[in-house]
């Protein structure tokens, strides 16, 4: 069962590089996955006035974030036994922190 908090979580990543997509490599990288606290409640009067009564709800939240990244080398295997090395990021530490909503 899920427990509160934000933790490292291994992800299998397969990379196909090259314009033709013929080079391939895979690696386990760390993501951050978890359950952080959030709440929503009626906005204070000052928020109502400042938003012209549109923001009637205030959400106070934290989300699971990557607090530290590190680079790892991924060996990509190409045709003819050619090898290419590329950098790939992996999470080193996780933390319940500021949510990012830029995409929504």
């Amino acid at each position, binding site marked *: *069962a*899920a*427990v*509160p908090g*934000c933790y490292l*979580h291994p*992800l299998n990543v397969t*990379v196909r590089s090259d314009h033709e997509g013929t080079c391939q490599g895979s690696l386990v*990288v*760390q*993501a*951050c*996955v*978890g*359950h*952080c*606290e*959030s*709440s*929503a*409640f*009626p*906005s*204070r*009067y000052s*928020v109502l006035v400042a*938003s012209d009564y*549109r*923001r*009637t*709800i*205030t*959400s*106070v*939240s*934290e*989300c*699971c*974030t*990557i607090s530290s*990244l590190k680079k790892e080398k991924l060996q990509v295997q190409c045709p003819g036994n050619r090898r290419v090395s590329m950098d*790939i*990021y*992996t*999470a080193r530490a*996780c933390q319940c*922190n*500021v*949510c*990012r*909503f830029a*995409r*929504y």
Partner: protein
Amino acid sequence: TSSYNLSTFVGCTVREFTFVARKSGCRGLRITTDACWGRCETWERPMLRPPYIAAHHRVCTYNETKQVTVQLPNCTAGVDPSYTYPVAVRCNCMGCSTATTECETI
């Protein structure tokens, strides 16, 4: 909701919330209502290309709302005593919409 163990609860639920409804020209009124609280699943994972981190961030917030209007006490003459606030009917893990919500961090 009192049967939940709050320190281990995972998910998003309606929870009792008490606040003081205030506006200038009236006395405040203490109100206990239904709001939202919980722990939503969120994640971030590395990406090969900029911005290098993909985020899936959701918060526990109002999914279905009803509006309740109360009368604030002791308002000065000419001040409308009515105060309207949202009551949570259902709560869900969702994106925080700045159109309807003041999105803050802890």
